[in-house]
């Protein structure tokens, strides 16, 4: 008993104050990419060639956060002249085309489906479906339930049954072998239902997009309402996406 109490005091209060304050993230974290439009065209082409995900649009000098895995190759190659990855983790979008960005993202809170806020703003139940995810996206969604993030304080929970859910949160590039199970889970969620895509694989197929075994983005199968980019998205990115999209 004494050990239990001693431990409890040692652990203290650990929940972060987000969204009131943004917690500090270590300096090597690579969040929102910001592009310098003045960058030399040859430099942009060199970055596009080196990008393992072919995520750089050379003509428009933009980066596709749906394909990007935030490895930072372009930033290092251009020494920040073309791209810098900032510490800003608030990078989710409501439209797929907004993922192609120069760093100027529309406000997620102002998305077109404001009625979702009225319906789900005070209580949101999520059913997670891993459809060939590598367990990194899954782990950083799971971590939202731990005391530091404490998702439940916002009235948001992961639930076991799609019948109890308002939304499905999909991770992974949707393998051929998971497609039916994913669709069945989606259909089991009562309407109106929300679809949230988490991670580069789910957004575009990610590193597996060249495989015939996976889909080229969840939006080719289901109507996606919220796109959360990253490989995997930082838990704070997930948290921001959920709060900005559903809360008033």
């Amino acid at each position, binding site marked *: 008993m004494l050990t239990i109490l001693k431990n409890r005091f040692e652990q203290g209060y650990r929940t972060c104050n987000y969204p009131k304050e943004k917690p500090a993230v270590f300096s090597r974290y690579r969040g929102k990419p910001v592009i310098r439009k003045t960058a030399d065209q040859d430099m942009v082409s060199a970055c596009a060639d080196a990008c393992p995900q072919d995520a750089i649009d050379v003509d428009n000098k933009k980066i596709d956060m749906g394909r990007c895995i935030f490895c*930072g190759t372009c930033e290092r190659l251009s020494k920040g002249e073309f791209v810098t990855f900032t510490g800003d983790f608030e990078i989710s979008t409501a439209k797929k085309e907004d993922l192609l960005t120069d760093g100027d993202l529309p406000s997620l809170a102002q998305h077109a489906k404001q009625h979702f806020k009225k319906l789900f703003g005070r209580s949101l139940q999520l059913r997670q479906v*891993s459809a060939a995810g590598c367990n990194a996206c899954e782990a950083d969604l799971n971590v939202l339930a731990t005391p530091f993030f404490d998702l439940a304080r916002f009235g948001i929970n992961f639930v076991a049954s799609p019948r109890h859910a308002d939304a499905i949160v999909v991770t992974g590039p949707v393998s051929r072998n998971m497609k039916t199970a994913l669709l069945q889970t989606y259909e089991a969620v009562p309407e109106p239902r929300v679809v949230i895509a988490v991670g580069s694989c789910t957004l575009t197929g990610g590193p597996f997009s060249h495989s015939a075994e996976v889909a080229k983005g969840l939006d080719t199968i289901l109507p996606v309402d919220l796109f959360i980019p990253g*490989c995997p998205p930082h838990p704070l990115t997930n948290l921001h996406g959920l709060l900005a999209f559903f809360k008033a």
Partner: protein
Amino acid sequence: MTQFIPIPSGGRVQRADIPHLPFDSFRTQALEIVKNGGKVVHFFAYEDQGSMKLMAVLRTDRLLAAGCDAPDTYPCLTKACEPFHLFEREIAEQYGIRPEGHPWLKMVRYHENIRKKPDVFNNDYTHDIPGNYDYYQVKGDEIHEVAVGPVHAGVIEPGHFRFNCIGERVLHLEIQLGYQHRGVEALLQTAKPKQLPILAENIAGDTTIGHGLCMAQAVEALASVQVDAGAKIIRTIALELERLANHIGDLGALCMDVAFLAPANYFGRIRGDFLNLSLLLCGNRFGKGLVRPGGVRFSLDDDIRKTLDERIKELKPQVEHVLELIFSASTVRARFEGCGSVRAEDADHLGLVGPAGRASGLAYDARRCFATEHYPHLLIPENAKATGDVYARARVRYDEVHQSIEIIQFLIGKSVDTQPVEGGTQALQALAPSSFAVTLNEGWRGEVSHAVLTDDAGNILRYKVKDPSFHNWNGLAMALRDTGISDFPLNNKSFNLSYCGFDL
């Protein structure tokens, strides 16, 4: 007398030097080695200039390799020697080669074979459910079946579990995976040099460093690239951080499953703190983007090293106190002890690796037996607590958490100097032709291994990946024999295996 030749772990071998035996002697000798205590590291098929070949890499106290021509059908090895079981099914699925007399010939990942040969399992792949198959059945008046998955109740990967029970007691658990299949091996064979490291890191995101290291070491061996001592230290730190985060997460989750919620929450939070230390090192919580052929992409500057040291000093007593809380609780011990035991003999026949193997008395740890990176300079003790139950699997993690913290503290005690590399793409463009390399690393789940064959132009001819889960899923099925079905979550968590690492 065996004609299999010893090959260096993490070294390059000329393919011409690997004995190409007549099938019968290949079979006899492979069986002989494994029956005498050898283990199967790899057994796979590949196509070379229009003909099919087999290659086996076996492990005694060293690695042994030999190959042969692959017949269309052959008398299976599994019947004489169980550790070949899953490997033969995999070969049958990937290339349509039939092992005659295989006692349990069913698909592994549910996909068509590469050569478009008639399907060995008579599957119709226009039906896209891997579970579309006659499960093993137990018959009798009181028998009932429980089907779980592919979509599970938690935030976890998909797979199907079929329990045959009498009352609450599990007679048999059949595990059918394949839902996560992404075609990883095919992608690795055709990937551009810039994509290869990314694919390797995404085989299993919770084992990013384990698989990343296997890929990098294979490329380094094939391209004769040297890695500086500093990079080896950083890679070792990263692999131990990965082990720490996962073991701590598992111990927390085990507490959750026995309803001891306080340590479950403490370790849930502390696990995140260790993931953040990987982020400190390379900007990603899972270590993605750190390891590349030729070294690492991020140096361990003194300010980063100092922060790492401070954080570990802060976390270490917290970890120790929570461990004490867990392991001194009689309620925890009552639930862990004697639950889901796997006997040493069964573990040996199944070829279990990693903490699951060590918990059942198989001392093997690749960090000690085939030391890479900085491990030749470190002492990795043998595990002595081998009761084979949930308690033993938790206790191995308890020991390893302590060891990993010590290793990291020791390694960050002094300055680490390295020249960061970028994509490692240069090395990838200069692989030695007609060569073979096998790499092994002790990931947190056990032995991770990659085997790479190049053709006469130096292109990747075959890229074989093996996650430790490939060995260990059958260990979970074995643990459930004669165990109450309500203890499944606890046992499952005590193995915590990878679905995507298995499904590839």
